[in-house]
């Protein structure tokens, strides 16, 4: 189904844990056809090739990658807002250029909220933030297939505590290259 997860999963595994990682099939029963099983890239047609291309792309774009690693990857939001502030336009433009330069590059936009309110509703609010960033990158020419908008709701705060300063840091979307 969503085979593109292969594309992010395989290079992620390789870069995060090195060559020691064996791509054994996961034994999670997969009735939906969308499980972690796609991590077993070799068993699906085209999966392996896509994964390898993803790894190669990281190497080819190394200098650029280094540049992006120091670039801002966090977009902050106002309280109860999904509007992208003008100050983040140039940040998103540089990410858009970087992503467009490599059609195999995959990026996840991870939306977050502050701690107030319910977990599931905050998950939906975080999703609105990540989708707002995704939409802006789309306007800047990034292909829909290269971006996945997901949410962590209030589950992964960047700053702990209930101060307004902490909550400001937590109302955010993070750009995660995979």
């Amino acid at each position, binding site marked *: 189904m969503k085979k593109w997860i292969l594309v992010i*999963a395989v290079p992620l595994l390789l870069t995060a844990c090195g060559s020691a990682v064996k791509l*054994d099939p996961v034994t999670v029963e997969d*009735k*939906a056809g*969308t499980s972690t099983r796609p991590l077993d890239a070799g068993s699906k047609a085209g999966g392996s090739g896509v994964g390898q291309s993803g790894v190669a792309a990281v190497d080819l774009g190394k200098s650029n990658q280094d540049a992006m690693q120091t670039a801002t990857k966090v977009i902050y939001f106002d309280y109860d807002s999904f509007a992208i502030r003008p100050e983040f336009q140039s940040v998103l433009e540089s990410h858009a250029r970087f992503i467009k330069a490599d059609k195999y590059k995959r990026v996840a936009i991870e939306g977050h909220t502050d701690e107030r309110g319910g977990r*599931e509703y905050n998950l939906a609010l975080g*999703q609105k933030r990540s989708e707002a960033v995704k939409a802006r990158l789309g306007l800047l020419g990034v292909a829909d297939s290269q971006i996945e908008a*997901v949410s962590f709701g209030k*589950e992964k705060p960047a700053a702990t505590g209930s101060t307004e300063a902490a909550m400001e840091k937590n109302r955010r979307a993070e750009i995660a290259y995979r």
Partner: protein
Amino acid sequence: MMLLSQHWDNAQMLKRLLFCFFIVLQSLPAFSQFRIEVSGVGLTQIPIAIASFKGDDSAPQKIAGIVLADLERSGQFRGVDTGTASMDEGSRPEFSNWRQKGADAFVTGSIAKLADGRYDIRMRLWDVARGQDLGGQSFAVVANDLRLVAHRIADFVYEKLTGDKGVFSTRIVYVTKGGQTFNLWVADADGENAQSALKSAEPIISPSWAPNGSQIAYVSFESRKPVIYVHDVASGKRRLVANFKGSNSAPAWSPDGKTLAATLSRDGGSQLYLMDASGGEPQRLAQSGSIDTEPTFTVDGKSIYFVSDRGGSPQVYRMAASGNNPERVTFSGTYNISPALSPDGKWLAYISRVSGAFKLHVMELSTGVATAITDTSADENPSFSPNSRMIIYATQQQGRESLMTTTLDGKIKARLAGQNGDIREPDWGPMQK
């Protein structure tokens, strides 16, 4: 008694694949995780004396103490001091003595070790006021099941004296966060006998019991996005049922256990879908340009309550299970979320923001009248007991996340006080068969 699965042969393999995300299905010895603190004052409570069971001294569990704690937590009973009295089920009590002590009911019993290592437990319930024998029970079980026996005795007493089914032998599921470790626990309804079903370095939210009590659906972030698993409690095996592009969350079972409702963002926005509980292609349930989430089925399976901000603020709505005819249910306030329905269909519990505080509310569905029933300010995620008499919910006290049970009028609350980390996301399981 049911034990959680102890092994997953491929745990090591999985760990490697999920690398940095430490996921192991495991078994931990049962341990005492909770303390009951009754903080409310009841109205009408039945005074009950429960004498120490004959043989309790040498038994691994003090049956009488567990039975009394269960009954007191329900808010409908008050313990009467029995001193050092120890009486077995065969002895007829001196009723006048217990009347003098103020007891309306009296429980006697015994526990003895059998030749095969199991325990024989017998009990009898007496109506002190009328001097009548109200019946008794006997069990022969292994040591690990003694707590369950005590809960079943509490259920027996509760049903005999109140006319309602007891829920002390049911189970709850909840999540703890200790440091950066998240744990999904299955425990007895009193919070004891907790066993870990899943341990992860990434968050786990929204556990939900299947109607038959054998499976739990939940949302795990172990793959750096929310995906929905269904976990078999007995075997520990699990399957991924929703891992679509975007976020997958808020699983809710249909009453027949065949269908899951869930919130998916695969087509943009957080929207409601139905899917076969064994997996498969989701069917879009409703379509709105706004957030739709937190679905929950009515007991007859014909309707679904959910949260939507289609009117400009999050409110509870109800629609047919086909997705037709949505209508708004909550009207007071600008933030009403996390609907839970009582199994008897009479009550809606939900969280409402009042002056910046998030408070558990209970609405009588026939009248629409809603009442805040807590004095805390960060309540979350209510879930009804299967007899519709109590609600378990998460809240914060002294900066710690904890679980509480409450009666529907809010008058009797008990804190299930964890010793380690934050405790959250409770869901009360169904009646045990």
